[in-house]
């Protein structure tokens, strides 16, 4: 495992796109939330942005910011770090040089896990620092109330990246794979859910789509606004954390298995 991770590091350490995306994440995660400070007036029921930075809600708000950033940046990265291997034909060269196809698969999965882990640790760190600075009093029980956001955040990162990896291996062309990733998440899945599924059966199953499941691991914080939805439909707007977690893990496993099959069965 360490051998493959080291190999991936040799490939990525001087890759400008990787470094830029990483830097963007590290800068934007705290900054995006801190922008809220400059907005004085918030519509009710929020009223003030102070709660964004206090324990325990800092995990929720920062989690939602991280949700968008990981969807954009880590998703982009996961597509890129596999399609680059195809466009420069280094994938086949690596196999010619002596790796097995399974080695190639695992090196990408290990790297993806390492990146997700780093992104999650940074999320936890930023949440802690912001919380400690802004909370008036620190109680362990309050700090720990939403600590489950940390594993949820990790699974969310893995989820977005597994979609990117699968599309990258499947489509191979960087531009088209990126286009597919973003258009699936932003258009195709919402249309499937709200346009097709919801019209056929008004059932909670409309939430069990991969991108929605990953998203619901760190959902929109303003859940009061979804009360109307529950009244009309008779089920919740979000998956519960447990539902989202289990659904996500199943999807990640499926996507990785599909990626493995594509890598090991197709000509290079």
């Amino acid at each position, binding site marked *: 495992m360490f*051998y493959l991770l*080291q*190999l991936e590091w*040799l*490939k990525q350490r*001087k*890759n*400008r796109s990787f470094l830029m995306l990483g830097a963007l994440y590290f800068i934007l995660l705290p900054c995006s939330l801190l922008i809220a400070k400059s907005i004085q007036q918030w519509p009710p029921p929020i009223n003030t942005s102070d709660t964004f930075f206090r324990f325990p809600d800092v995990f929720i708000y920062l989690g939602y910011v991280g949700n968008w950033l990981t969807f954009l940046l880590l998703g982009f990265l996961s597509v890129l770090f596999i399609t*680059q291997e195809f466009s*420069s*034909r*280094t994938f*086949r*060269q*690596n*196999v*010619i*040089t*002596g*790796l*097995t196809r399974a080695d190639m698969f695992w090196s990408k999965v290990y790297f993806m896990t390492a990146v997700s882990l780093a992104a999650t640790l940074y999320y936890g760190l930023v949440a802690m620092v912001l919380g400690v600075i802004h909370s008036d009093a620190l109680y362990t029980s309050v700090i720990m109330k939403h600590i489950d956001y940390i594993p949820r955040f990790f699974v969310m990162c893995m989820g977005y990246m597994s979609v990117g990896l699968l599309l990258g291996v499947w489509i191979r062309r960087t531009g088209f794979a990126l286009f597919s990733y973003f258009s699936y998440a932003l258009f195709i899945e919402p249309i499937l859910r709200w346009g097709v599924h919801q019209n056929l059966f008004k059932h909670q199953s409309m939430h069990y789509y991969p991108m929605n499941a990953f998203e619901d691991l760190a959902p929109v914080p303003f859940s009061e606004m979804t009360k109307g939805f529950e009244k009309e439909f008779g089920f919740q707007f979000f998956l519960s954390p447990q539902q989202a977690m289990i659904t996500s893990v199943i999807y990640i496993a499926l996507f990785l298995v599909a990626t493995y099959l594509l890598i090991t*069965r197709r*000509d*290079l």
Partner: protein
Amino acid sequence: MTILSINQLSKHYGRIHAVDGLSLTVEEGNIFGILGPNGSGKTTTLGMILNIIFPDSGTYDWFEGRFGNNPRRHIGALLETPNFYPYLSALDNLKIVAHVRKLKDPDFDGILELVNLKGREHDLFRTYSFGMKQRLAIASAMLGDPDVLIFDEPTNGLDPQGIAEVRETILEIANRGKTILMASHILDEVEKICTHVAILKKGRLLATGQVGAILSDEQWIEVEATERNKLKALLANIPELKSVTEKDRFLLVTTQPDFQAATLNQLAFQQGILLTHLVSRSKSLESEFLEITKEDLV
């Protein structure tokens, strides 16, 4: 030791048979050329034995199975184009190759020296000229000193000086006793470098064997005299002649390369035979190659 044996290997894309029931054997120390026009299945064959392309049927076996099902760390190969990470320097790219091959203490300097890239190793791969990329690919194939090297059209797209350099490098490698497998559509190249050759056309093997046997550079002499029987008796006694065939208007003689038509003329004159026809020509390899690949397949 048998380095590689290919048995009835086939691959088709749709209705096109890229490789069709190919069988070959490469022995240790061979410089084996796979010769064929473009689209004859050379690269597909190399792709299959390097596990890049899955064959539809047939098998191949490296090193008599000594290194199991992943023998590629013992083979240095360059397929079609030089493939490296464009945003990394030549040295960083070689480091990745060394890591993949699990080399303990790779000799980067020596290998860069061999392919004449010393001094440019810190430049990014994408800034390299095509000739430099090709030479880096040869360097990377040789990293770790593998026993077998595979080159696919190694001089393709190079200028004359580049071609000469690459050929020289390959011959230098060959002199170290390595086994080399080389695909090429240039007959001259195979003839100059290789010891053995297999000729492919439309995925089928037309001929295989030693270069000398398949692509003989023998001379032909057409000769006729007033008294053909006397001439025939004379020819039978000249050891440098390899064969004599009777044609309608002349006798067709194949000779060893250094045999001069003038010698024949002189010998005939000494025996009192007057030649009425004497034409010497060496059968060009190019035309022989075209002849072989033109033959209709049965």
